[in-house]
C-alpha cells in the first residue's frame, strides 16, 4: 500500500529461469567495452530526442517553478529499474503508459522514454553494462555507492548541488532535513552533490523475527523470550507437528542458498554488512574483522550446522532459491522467519491468504546466555542513487520528477486518493520514487492513539487509509479482507497495529539495542576491488560449515581474510574513521 516498506532490500527477486548468455552476447559486451573505451567517450545524444527546443531552451531554463511545466514538452530518456511482475496494472496500463507517465506529461510536460525495463538480477546486470558501455540515459538510478564512486571519478554524471537547491520543493527538501541531512552529506564528493539518494528510516525495515503464533498455540508454547527458547520453538516446529495434520511435513527455519539474514546472526552478536568498533577502538568488519566477532560468527555457524543435521533447516537449502523459499512460507511449511519489519507485506500476507488459521507475530531479536540483546543497523539505509548524465541540458527534470512524486504520494497536504491506490506494489510503476523517512514513528503513534480513542480527526489522508485497513481487519477479525483487490488489512495490522513491527522497532529504540554501522564514508578503493571476492569466499565457507564441514575451514578463512584484502579495506576504513572523528 503505502511506501514505508522497502521492497529493494528484501532479497532480490531472482529470475528462477536463469538467463541464457550466449557466447555471442559476451563478445558483444566486450566489444561494447572496447568501443566505449577505445574511442574515448561516446555520449549517444540520439536517445535524448529534443523536439524543437533549440529556439526556446533559454526560456525553459528560466522557468524555475519546481513543478512548472515544460513548454514545449521535453522527452527524457530513462531506464525503469524496478519493473517487476508485482506491479498489477489496470485498464491496459503498462510501464510506458500509466498514471505516472501521464501525470509527468500533463503536469510537467515531460515525456518519459525507457531504454529498458528490468528488475532484480537482470536489472543489476543491465545497469552494470549500461555503465560499462558508456551509453547512459539522461536520468537513471545507480544501485550501489561503488557505481556512484566510479561515475563521479570518471566525470560522467552532473553536479546537482545548485539544481537541487533551486528546484526542489520545500517538501522534497524536508525529506533530507533533521537527522536525515546525513543522507545528503554522505553522498557529497568534494562538497558537491552528484546524486539525489533514495533511502528510508532504517527503523522501517529493521531486522526482527516472525513466528507462527497459531503454531505456538497448537503446541501450547509460550512466546519465546530468549535465544534458547526461540531455538527450542524452532525444533518444536520441526518435530512436534505444529500444524496438527498428523504428518511430519514442517520445519523450523526457512533459509535458501543465499544464507540467512542479519536477524539470526544478531542473536549471536555477529553483525553482517556493518563495521563495528572493537575493544581497541578501531573499526572492524562485524562478522569476522576481529577475534571477538569471528568467535560470535563461529558460534552462529555451529548452531546452523546443528540445525541442519537435525532437519530444522531444509536438507537441500543449498539448492533452493528465494522463490522456492517463499513457496514454503506461503504453503505453511515453516514457522520461524529471521527477517525484517516489512515481511507481512510479502510472503507472510500470502500465507494468511492461503491458510485462514495462519497468523504471525513479530519478535524482538533475543540473545543467548542472558547477554544484552543487540540489533545491527545501517543508519544510511540507502536503496538507490538518482543521477543525471553529464551534458544533459535539463538536470532539473530529475528534481521535478521527484517533486511531483512527493506531491502525489508523500505530502499529506497534497496527496489525493486518485494516486494513492494504484497497482499495489509500492508505486513501482514510477521510475523514480522517494520515501518519506520522518513519518515511520509518527504514523505509528498517530495510528495508535486513533485506534485507542477512535478519533480519526487528526490523521492525515495517508494515515487514514492505514487506519481503515487496520480497523477493517481487526474489527471483523476477517482475513478475507486482505483478499480483496490490493487491500492489505492483515499486513497493515501487523506492521502498524498493536504489537506489530513498529512496536518492536519502538522497543529497540527505547532500550537502546542498536549496534550501528560506524562507517558511512564512500566505498574505499580496496573495498570496490576486493570485497566481491571476499564475499564469494565467505558464502562458500558458510555453506560448507552449515552442511557439516569442520570449523577449521572458517578459522583459515578468517586468517586469510587480511591477505585477501581485508587488511587494506580495514586500513582505509579506519583512516576515514580517524579523520571523521577528529573533525567532529
Amino acid at each position, binding site marked *: 500500500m503505502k511506501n514505508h516498506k522497502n521492497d529493494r532490500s528484501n532479497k532480490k527477486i531472482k529470475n528462477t529461469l536463469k538467463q*541464457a548468455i550466449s557466447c555471442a552476447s559476451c563478445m558483444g559486451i566486450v566489444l561494447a567495452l572496447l568501443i566505449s*573505451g577505445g574511442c574515448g567517450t561516446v555520449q549517444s545524444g540520439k536517445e535524448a530526442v529534443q523536439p524543437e527546443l533549440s529556439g526556446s531552451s533559454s526560456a525553459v531554463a528560466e522557468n524555475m517553478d519546481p513543478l512548472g511545466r515544460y513548454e514545449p514538452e521535453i522527452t527524457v530518456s530513462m531506464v525503469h529499474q524496478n519493473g517487476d511482475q508485482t506491479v498489477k496494472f489496470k485498464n491496459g496500463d503498462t510501464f510506458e503508459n500509466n498514471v505516472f507517465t501521464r501525470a509527468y506529461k500533463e503536469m510537467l510536460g515531460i515525456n518519459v522514454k525507457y531504454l529498458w525495463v528490468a528488475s532484480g538480477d537482470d536489472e543489476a546486470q543491465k545497469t552494470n553494462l549500461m555503465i560499462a558501455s558508456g551509453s547512459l540515459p539522461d536520468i537513471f538510478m545507480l544501485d550501489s555507492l561503488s*557505481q556512484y564512486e566510479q*561515475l563521479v571519478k570518471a566525470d560522467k554524471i552532473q553536479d546537482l548541488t545548485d539544481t537541487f537547491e533551486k528546484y526542489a520543493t520545500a517538501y522534497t527538501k524536508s525529506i533530507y532535513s533533521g537527522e536525515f541531512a546525513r543522507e545528503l552529506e554522505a553522498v557529497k564528493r568534494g562538497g558537491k552533490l552528484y546524486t539525489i539518494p533514495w533511502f528510508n528510516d532504517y527503523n522501517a525495515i529493521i531486522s526482527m523475527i516472525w513466528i507462527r503464533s497459531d503454531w505456538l498455540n497448537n503446541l501450547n508454547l509460550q512466546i519465546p523470550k530468549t535465544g534458547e527458547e526461540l531455538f527450542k520453538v524452532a525444533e518444536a516446529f520441526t518435530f512436534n507437528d505444529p500444524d496438527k495434520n498428523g504428518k511430519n511435513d514442517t520445519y523450523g527455519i526457512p533459509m535458501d542458498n543465499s544464507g540467512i539474514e542479519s536477524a539470526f546472526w544478531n542473536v549471536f552478536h555477529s553483525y553482517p554488512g556493518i563495521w563495528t568498533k572493537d575493544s581497541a577502538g578501531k573499526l572492524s568488519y562485524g562478522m569476522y574483522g576481529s577475534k571477538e566477532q569471528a568467535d560470535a560468527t563461529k558460534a552462529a555457524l555451529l548452531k546452523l550446522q546443528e540445525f541442519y543435521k537435525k532437519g530444522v533447516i531444509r536438507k537441500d537449502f543449498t*539448492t533452493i532459491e528465494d522463490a522456492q523459499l517463499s513457496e514454503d512460507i506461503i504453503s505453511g511449511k515453516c514457522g520461524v522467519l529471521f527477517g525484517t519489519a516489512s515481511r507481512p507485506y510479502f510472503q507472510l500476507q500470502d500465507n494468511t491468504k492461503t491458510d485462514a488459521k495462519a497468523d504471525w507475530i513479530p519478535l524482538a531479536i533475543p540473545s543467548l546466555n542472558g547477554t544484552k540483546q543487540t540489533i545491527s543497523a545501517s543508519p544510511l539505509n540507502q536503496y538507490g542513487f538518482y543521477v543525471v548524465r553529464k551534458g544533459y541540458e535539463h538536470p532539473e527534470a530529475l528534481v521535478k520528477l521527484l517533486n511531483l512524486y512527493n506531491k502525489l504520494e508523500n505530502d499529506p497536504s497534497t496527496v489525493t486518493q486518485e494516486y494513492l491506490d494504484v497497482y499495489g506494489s509500492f508505486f513501482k510503476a514510477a521510475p523514480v520514487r522517494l520515501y518519506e523517512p520522518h513519518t515511520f514513528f509518527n504514523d505509528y503513534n498517530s495510528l495508535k492513539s486513533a485506534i485507542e480513542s477512535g478519533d480519526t480527526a487528526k490523521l492525515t489522508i495517508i494515515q487514514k487509509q492505514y487506519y481503515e485497513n487496520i480497523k477493517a481487519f481487526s474489527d471483523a477479525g476477517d482475513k478475507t479482507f486482505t483478499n480483496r483487490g490490493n487491500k492489505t488489512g492483515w499486513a497493515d495490522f501487523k506492521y502498524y497495529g498493536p504489537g506489530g513491527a513498529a512496536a518492536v522497532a519502538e522497543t529497540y529504540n527505547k532500550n537502546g539495542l542498536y549496534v550501528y554501522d560506524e562507517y558511512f564514508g564512500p566505498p574505499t578503493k580496496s573495498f570496490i*576491488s576486493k570485497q566481491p571476492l571476499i564475499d564469494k569466499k565467505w*558464502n*562458500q565457507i558458510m*555453506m560448507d560449515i552449515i552442511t557439516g564441514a569442520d570449523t577449521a575451514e572458517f578459522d583459515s578463512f578468517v586468517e586469510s581474510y587480511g591477505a*585477501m584484502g581485508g587488511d587494506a579495506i580495514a586500513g582505509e576504513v579506519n583512516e576515514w574513521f580517524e579523520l571523521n572523528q577528529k573533525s567532529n
Partner: protein
Amino acid sequence: MFAEKFKRQLPLHIMLLPAVILVIVYNYGPMFGLVMAFQNFNPAEGFLKSEWVGLGNFSYLMKVGDIHQVLWNTVYISVMKIAAETLAAIVLALLLNELRHRAYKRVVQTVIYFPHFLSWIILGGIFRELLAYDGIVNNVLGHVGVSPVIFLGDNKVFPFVLVATHVWQQAGFGIIVYLAAISGINPQLYEAAVMDGAGRLAQIRHITLPGIKSIIILMATLSLGSILDAGFGQVYALYGPAVYKSGDVIDTWVYRMGLLDAQYSIATAVDMFKSVVSFVLVSISYFMAYKFSDYHIF
C-alpha cells in the same frame, strides 16, 4: 600471374569477406580488451584513463587462491566429460552397428541424438526437478533403500552429475563420427573373419576397433584444445553457491565476476590466463593429431 589469379578468384574472395569481417570484429577486436587485465579498470573511464597495475591482478588472484580451485574443477570435469563421452559414443556406435533392423536402428539413433538440440536452459529446469531432494530420482532411490542425495548441492556428487548429464546429452552426437568410420571399414575383412570362425565379439575386437582406432585418437586429441571449456551453459544451469567449490569452472567464475559483480579487470585476467593455456593446448593437440593421424588444417 598473381593479379590474374586474384581476378579469377575475386568472387570467392568477396564471398569470404563477410566471414572475415565477422571474425575480425568479434574475435580479434575484443582482444584489445585484454588490456583490462593489467589495469584497475573503471568502465566509466575507459581504457585510456584507467589506472595501470601491471601484473597486480594476477598476483592478487594467486593470493586469494580461488583460481587454483576453479582451474582444477575445470580440468577435472572436462577430462571426465571427454573420457566418458568418448567411451559412451564408441560403445553406442558399436551396438548400433550390430543392429540389423534398419528402421529400428534409425529410430534409436534419432532418439539418443535428440537431446543434443535442447538448450541447457530448458534441460537445467528439467534436471533441477528430476534431481531435487524430493524429486523423482530420489523417490526411486528411496524405494530401493538409498537415502536421498542432494545431487545439485553436494560437492562430492555434483561433478558426476555434470558428467552424466553431459554424456546423456552429447553421446548421441558423438556416435555419428564413429558410425561413419565403421562404415568405411572394408566389408571383405568381416567376410574373411567369418570364414576364419570369428564371432561377433571377435569381429568387434579384431576388426571394428582397430579400424576406427585412428579416428578415436584423432577425436580425443582434438578435444584436448577445449579442455578448459567445461561447458558454461550446462554448469550455469545446474550449479549454485553450494557447489561453487566443486562445480565452478573458469567460464562461470568469469561470468559472475565480470558481468554480475562488474570486476572487469579480475575477470579479464582469469579469462586471459585461460586463453593462453588453451592456445598452448590447441597447438599441442594439432601437433599430436598431425603426428598420429596425419590430420592437418593448414
